[in-house]
């Protein structure tokens, strides 16, 4: 092995292995390269999903047909939902930043099963391709919404099968990532890194990985049953054959509610990393944050019924689920309080990642608190399946996971690419984005309370006002996002080179390795003595 290609001192970006060119990436088992593969795939589909969202908002700017018919609109929100949920936010943070930083943060050279890791990415891409075929083959794009509710999902002539099957394959990919992470965390922590000396981002990945392992098979079998129902005519959920459509909803949400915590937990982990670093202060209540993570993962498994408050379930089930839903809100509240307390008496360094983190707390609070409105029986009956729900989940999925993603991207960018982005543009992009975001989604709460149902291509004139503001907000936000990504993409290729190991003054292990990291991450595996956030000296 020539010296310039030594695994210990060559950056993972420059390392030349067995393959050349593109193959050096798509066949690489290096966790860092796999992380970037996910990042690029997600960016591509994220732009598709965002454009679909924008088209929907443009359609909704006025009642009646504006730029499309109902068929197109239904196909749009279905594809938008599938892309955003199954392709972006469910794999999202674990697949990109988890892959890249989990091994480094716990002092390992790679994940436990590198080849399985590559397989996950391949399955993910294959799943995406299968989903995409649904758009072009057969009897038109699927029009069921991302929830595939029975019996509509097997009565519609549209091409539902590939979408369902693609989601199934992606679920497999998600399970493999989860297995990989749990084993990595159990077996590969650096010497001295006890469970309670592990940083919080790995902790949240650990909780997430368990949900991925224990919840994803549920959606797997549910989707398979739809396939069996459509393809073979086996009656499982079809009321004409005695099936119970509500049982389908149970199965769907047994996965999909825990899935929302798959989306948010890693985001909370990112925020728990960023806040102490930019406050120059150890995190407040480390153990409380860890425990609340595990509590969310566990209790979150038993609240699925809050999506079905008007489905015709028994009354007793309704108030049980409502009660459990309120319990699961508490650990999130604990986290918010701890983050804010971390800032108390800190020495706050206002940089782009910190802007994202602080605005995360704000929008997450709005999303979470409106979740409480949804969790309460009386109010849910009124706002269920209205734009209030749409606003809630955009605030918390997009505002939570999306903001955390942007925060992570701006925080770890210099480490990942060995280049720095332009701070001025980044902050400007954030500002425009933040304003547009609130203009886009805030009016939806009021529309929902007024009674505008979701998945409505057309609406009564009463709802016009809020929709105008909301649609304009979408355009403002998209200008912000263009600035942000233009800045990042340009900087990844032409930005100022940096080899500074620790630009923000972080204390976790990823800030002690080379920038960008070498192929093997560590020349020598470090031994850990202190907790992860020791800012005092």
């Amino acid at each position, binding site marked *: 092995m020539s010296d310039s290609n030594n695994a210990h001192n060559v950056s993972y970006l420059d390392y030349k292995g067995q393959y050349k060119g593109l193959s050096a990436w798509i066949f690489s088992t290096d966790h860092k390269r796999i992380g970037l593969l996910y990042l690029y795939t997600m960016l591509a589909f994220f732009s598709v999903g965002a454009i679909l969202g924008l088209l929907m908002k443009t359609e909704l700017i006025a009642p009646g047909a504006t730029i499309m018919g*109902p068929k197109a609109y*239904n196909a749009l929100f279905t594809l938008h939902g599938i892309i955003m949920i199954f392709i972006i936010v469910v794999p999202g943070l674990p697949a990109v930043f988890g892959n890249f930083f989990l091994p480094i943060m716990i002092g390992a050279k790679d994940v436990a099963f590198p080849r399985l890791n590559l397989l996950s990415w391949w399955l993910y891409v294959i799943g995406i391709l299968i989903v995409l075929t649904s758009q072009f083959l057969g009897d038109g794009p699927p*029009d069921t919404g991302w929830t595939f509710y029975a*019996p*509509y999902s097997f*009565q519609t*002539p549209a091409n539902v099968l590939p979408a369902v099957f693609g989601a199934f394959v992606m679920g497999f990919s998600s399970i493999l990532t989860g297995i990989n992470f749990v084993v990595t965390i159990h077996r590969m922590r650096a010497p001295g890194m006890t469970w309670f000396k592990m940083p919080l981002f790995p902790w949240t990945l650990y909780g997430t990985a368990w949900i991925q392992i224990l919840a994803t098979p549920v959606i797997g079998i549910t989707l398979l049953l739809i396939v069996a129902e459509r393809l073979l005519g086996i009656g499982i959920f079809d*009321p*004409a054959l005695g099936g119970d*459509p*509500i049982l389908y909803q149970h199965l769907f949400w047994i996965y999909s509610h825990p899935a929302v915590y798959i989306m948010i937990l890693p985001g909370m982990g990112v925020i728990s990393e960023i806040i102490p670093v930019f406050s*120059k202060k*150890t995190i*407040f209540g*480390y*153990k*409380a944050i860890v425990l609340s993570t595990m509590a969310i993962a566990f209790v979150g498994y038993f609240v699925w019924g809050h999506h079905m408050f008007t*489905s*015709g379930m028994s009354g007793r089930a*309704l108030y049980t689920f*409502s009660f459990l839903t*309120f319990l699961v*809100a*508490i650990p999130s509240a*604990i986290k*918010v*309080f701890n983050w*804010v*307390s971390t*800032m*108390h*008496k*800190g*020495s*706050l360094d*206002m940089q782009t990642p910190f802007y994202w983190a602080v605005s995360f*707390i*704000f929008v997450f*609070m*709005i999303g979470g*608190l409106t979740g*409480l*409105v949804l*969790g*309460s*029986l*009386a*109010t*849910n*009956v*009124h706002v269920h*399946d209205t734009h209030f729900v749409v606003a809630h989940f955009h605030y918390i999925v997009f505002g939570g996971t999306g903001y955390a993603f942007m925060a992570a991207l701006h925080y770890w960018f210099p480490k990942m690419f060995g280049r720095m982005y332009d701070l001025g543009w980044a902050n400007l992009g954030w500002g425009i984005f933040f304003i547009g975001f609130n203009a886009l989604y805030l009016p939806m709460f009021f529309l929902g309370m007024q*009674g505008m*149902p*979701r*998945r*409505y*291509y057309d609406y*009564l004139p009463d709802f016009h006002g809020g929709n105008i503001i909301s649609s304009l907000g979408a355009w403002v936000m998209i200008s912000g996002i263009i600035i942000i990504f233009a800045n990042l993409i340009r900087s990844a290729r032409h930005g100022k080179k940096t080899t500074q190991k620790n630009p923000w003054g972080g204390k976790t292990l990823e800030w002690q390795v080379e920038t960008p990291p070498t192929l093997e991450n560590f020349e020598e595996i470090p031994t850990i003595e202190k907790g992860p956030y020791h*800012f005092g000296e």
Partner: protein
Amino acid sequence: MNPGASNFVEGVNNAFIFIIGISLFFLIGITLVIILFLYRYNKKRHPKAVQIEGSNKLEVIWTIIPLALVMGMFYYGYVGWKPMKRIPDEGVRITANARMWSFSFTYENGRITEKLYVPVDTAVIVRLNALDVVHSLYIPAFRVKEDMVPGLANNQMWFQPNKVGNYSLFCTEYCGLQHSFMHTEVVVMEPAEFWEWYSDTTAVAIPIEEGADLALLGRQLVESKGCLACHSLDGSTIIGPSFLGAWGSNVPVVTNGQEREVAFDEAYVLRSIYEPDADIHQGYRAGQMFSYQGEITEQQIELIVEFLKSLNE
């Protein structure tokens, strides 16, 4: 917020006020604290951070207080919701039928309407049926919503309107192509007016005056029953075959697995409406159109036939 018009409005609104009030308190409070910190502990003003590991006392406090508050929210939600499930024994009973993509309401005396007519200050009990897929009946002004699930027996909702007027009624469970057009109105009337309307069964049989334009009546019927959601009048295919030029043609169909041709005549139209799956137009799917038996009378089918004929002119 939508101004309310039923007995549930108060309970639901109270829950809203309680939850949103507390939420706003925390949202505004925490946001102000963050802004204060951003200012007060900015690097410039506070160059050296003070290290604080945490405080068990605080953790307990901010577990207990929110816990107590959310229990309050649960309670208000429960109290506002409970009466919705306590269906009274006495009241006006109406059966709501949902299908892609229209509602129809059947009264105890057999009257069938497309709008929901109810008397003010009287309990109304609605039995919810769905023929094809899941729909949901939502009246924002009454704060009620319940899914209409095919195959689910004994699914009911009730309410007591307390203000005369017309209110929107939506389908809020996504049910396919024309889901967003599946809405109608509730008409709340003075009891006297309502009972007069109720017993006025003349409307059940359409009074066909001498010389009335039968085709036009047929057209109105086809429009109001929602047929046009699936059948176009311009030759294009939506979900079912177009009505344009259909009359008198020979239709290739599949009957019990056998392919054959039938003439598109009065008998065929009747069969198509009452037993749509008996003859399946080739290239279309069974199970899309559901029978209108009991919803469209034979007399009305005659009008539809007149209308279909008129399309050939």
